[in-house]
C-alpha cells in the first residue's frame, strides 16, 4: 500500500479510529484513567494534512491530538504506553492523553490549554526562517479556540512577519458542550484570518484527499515565502467531548447526519464501489492497534523514583 491514495487513507483513518476505540475499551476496563478526548469522526484532517507535510516540518496539536500523532507517524505502542502511564510511553507517562509530544516524529506536542500551542507553531516557523531548515509549521486547533486571545495574537504575529505557518482549524461545531454558533455572531471563521491578511479557505474536512491537496498548496506557498495560511476543516466528532460525555446537547437527527458525513463511512462506500475489500483494511488496522495495545499493557509502569527527574538542565 502506498502512502497516498484512497486506500492508504482509509487504512490511516482506520488506524486512528481503531486506536481511539481501543481507548474506549481500556477506559471502560479501568486501565486508562482521567479525561480522554477522542477524535472519532475527525480522522480525515490528520490523515490528509500530515501526508502533505515533510519530515522536518513541525506539528502542534491540542488535547484531541492522538490522531495527529498517529498520522505523523508516531508508533502506536509507545503512544498507548504513554496514555497507560508506562515507562515506555513517548514521555514516560509524564504527558498523558492530553499533553504528550514526540519530537522525533515532528510532533511537537499536544496542548491542553486552548490556543496555547498556536504561538508555538509560529515560533517554530520563526526558527525555520533562521535555521536554514526550510521548515514550515502547522498549528491545529478547534473552532472554539478562535475566541481565545492567544490565537489572533499568534495569527497576526505570523501575518505581520510573513512566517511559514499553517493554521488548521478543525471545526467540529462544538467547544466542549457548547455549539460554536452560539458563541460567535459571524460563523464564517475564515473571515478572521482574512482580516489579518492571511489567505484562508474553508473546506470539507471529511475528505482526506481534499485536505491533503489544500494543505500541500498552502505549504508550498509558505515555503516559497508567501506567508501563513488558514484552513478551516468542517468536520464532526461522533463521540462526546471526553469519554463519558453523553452528548445531551445533540439531537439524534444531528448525530445521524454526522454519521453519514463522517470520513470513514464515506471512504468505505467509495472504495467498496471500486471493488476494494474495505473490511480487510479495517481488520488490518484493528490487528495493528490490538497488538500495540497488548504490548503496551505489558510494558512496565513508570517508575515513581524517577518522578523528580528532568525538571532542569
Amino acid at each position, binding site marked *: 500500500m502506498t502512502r497516498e491514495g484512497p486506500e492508504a487513507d482509509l487504512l490511516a483513518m482506520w488506524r486512528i479510529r481503531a486506536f481511539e476505540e481501543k481507548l474506549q475499551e481500556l477506559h471502560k476496563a479501568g486501565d*486508562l*484513567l*482521567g*479525561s480522554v478526548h477522542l477524535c472519532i469522526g475527525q480522522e480525515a484532517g490528520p490523515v490528509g494534512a500530515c501526508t502533505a507535510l515533510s519530515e522536518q516540518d513541525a506539528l502542534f496539536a491540542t*488535547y484531541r491530538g492522538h490522531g495527529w500523532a498517529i498520522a505523523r507517524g508516531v508508533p502506536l505502542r509507545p503512544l498507548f504506553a504513554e496514555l497507560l*502511564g*508506562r515507562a515506555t*510511553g513517548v514521555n*514516560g*507517562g*509524564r*504527558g*498523558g*492523553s*492530553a*499533553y504528550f509530544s514526540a519530537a522525533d516524529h515532528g510532533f511537537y506536542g499536544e*496542548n*491542553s*490549554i*486552548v*490556543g*496555547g500551542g498556536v504561538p508555538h507553531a509560529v515560533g517554530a516557523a520563526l526558527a525555520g526562517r533562521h535555521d536554514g531548515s526550510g521548515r514550515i509549521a502547522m498549528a491545529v486547533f478547534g473552532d*472554539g*479556540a478562535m*475566541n*481565545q*486571545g*492567544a490565537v489572533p495574537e499568534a495569527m497576526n504575529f505570523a501575518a505581520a512577519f510573513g512566517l511559514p505557518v499553517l493554521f488548521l482549524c478543525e471545526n467540529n461545531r462544538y*467547544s*466542549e*458542550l*457548547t455549539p460554536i454558533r*452560539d*458563541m*460567535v455572531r459571524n460563523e464564517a471563521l475564515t473571515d478572521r484570518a482574512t482580516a489579518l491578511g492571511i489567505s484562508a479557505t474553508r473546506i470539507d474536512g471529511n475528505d482526506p484527499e481534499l485536505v491533503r491537496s489544500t494543505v500541500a498548496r498552502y505549504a508550498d506557498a509558505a515555503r516559497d515565502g508567501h506567508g501563513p495560511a488558514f484552513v478551516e476543516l468542517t468536520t464532526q466528532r461522533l463521540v462526546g467531548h471526553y469519554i463519558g460525555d453523553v452528548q*445531551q*446537547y445533540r439531537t439524534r437527527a444531528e448525530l445521524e447526519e454526522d454519521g453519514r458525513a463522517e470520513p470513514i463511512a464515506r471512504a468505505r462506500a467509495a472504495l467498496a464501489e471500486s471493488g476494494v475489500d474495505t473490511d480487510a483494511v479495517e481488520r488490518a488496522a484493528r490487528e495493528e492497534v490490538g497488538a500495540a495495545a497488548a504490548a503496551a499493557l505489558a510494558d512496565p*509502569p*513508570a517508575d*515513581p*523514583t*524517577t*518522578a*523528580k527527574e528532568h*525538571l532542569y538542565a
Partner: protein
Amino acid sequence: MPELNYAGAVNAALRRCLEELPETLLYGEDVAKPGGVHGVTRRLWKDFGDRVFDTPISESAILGTAVGAAMMGRRPIVEIMWADFFLVALDQLVNQAANIRYVSQGRLTAPLTVRTQQGNSPAACAQHSQNLEAMFTHVPGLRVVVPSTPQNAYDSMVSAVYSDDPVVVFDNRTLYLGEKQQVETGGAVKPIGGGTVRRTGAAATVVTWGAMTHRVLAAADRLAEEGTEVTVLETPWLNPFDHEAVHRSVAATGGRLAVVHEANVTGGFGGEVVVRALEAGVLSGRPLRIGAADTRIPAAPRLAGALIPDTEQILTELRKFTRA
C-alpha cells in the same frame, strides 16, 4: 437541612445568591445549558434565564466583563473552568480587579466572585493539576478561599458573593462528588474569613485547607490510634487569614506547627503561615511544611502519587514531627 455533596452545596449557594441578589449574574464556559463540566451549576440556567449564560473560550473577556459589570453595580459570579486557565487572563484580576477600590478610594468597587477548581486528579496532565492559591494570596486586594466540605463550600460561596471585594473561590474537583453531608442552607451570611478546629490535641497544630483537609484528618485519626493527638485547624480563608487563631493554637500545642497543602512547597502559602507564627513568637523548634514536590505534575497516577502528599506520607511526616 438538605443532604448535599460538595457540588450540590455549591449549587445551593449559587441558587440562594441568584434568588436573594437580583444583581448577580452567573457565567462562564459551559456553565449554563450544560450545567458545568462538573455539574455544579446544573439547572440554574433553567431557573434564572439570561442571568446565567455560557460564554466563548475567552478568559480575559470572562474576567474582564465581570470587572466591568461589577464596577457598574452588578455582582457577577464567573467561572474559570480550571485554575490553570487563570494564567491566560491574570491581568484582569491582579492589574484590574484588585486595584479598583484602592485606586478610586472606594468610589468604584469590584464585587465579583470567581469560581474555579484546581489540583491533581488521576491522570490529569501538568497543565490541569496545579494549585495556584499562593499566586493570589500575594496580591493585595484579592480575597481567597479554598473550601473542603459541603458546608464550608456553601458558606464560603455565599460569603464570597455577598462580599464587596473580588473573591476567588478554589474548589478541588475531586471533592465535588464526595460524601453527602447535612448542609445548613439559608441562615445569616457569614463574614468572610476564619476557619474551623477540626480536632484537638496537644502534640502539634496542623493547619490545612482544601482537599488536603481530608487527608490530614485521616492521618490525624491514625496518629490518634497510635496515641498522639494533634489539633487540626482547617483554614479555608487564606485572605483574610486568621493568623491569630493559628497562633493561639500553636501556643497551646507546645509551639509545634505543621502546614499541609497540595501546592508545591516553595513559595506556597504554608511558608507565610509559618513565618507569621515565627514573627509572633509562638513557634518552638522547627516547623513542618508538607506540600507537593517542587516539580511539575506528571500525568501517570503512580508518578503524581510520588509527588503529592497522601495520607500515608502525611502520617509518616507528622509521626516523625510529633516525636521529634
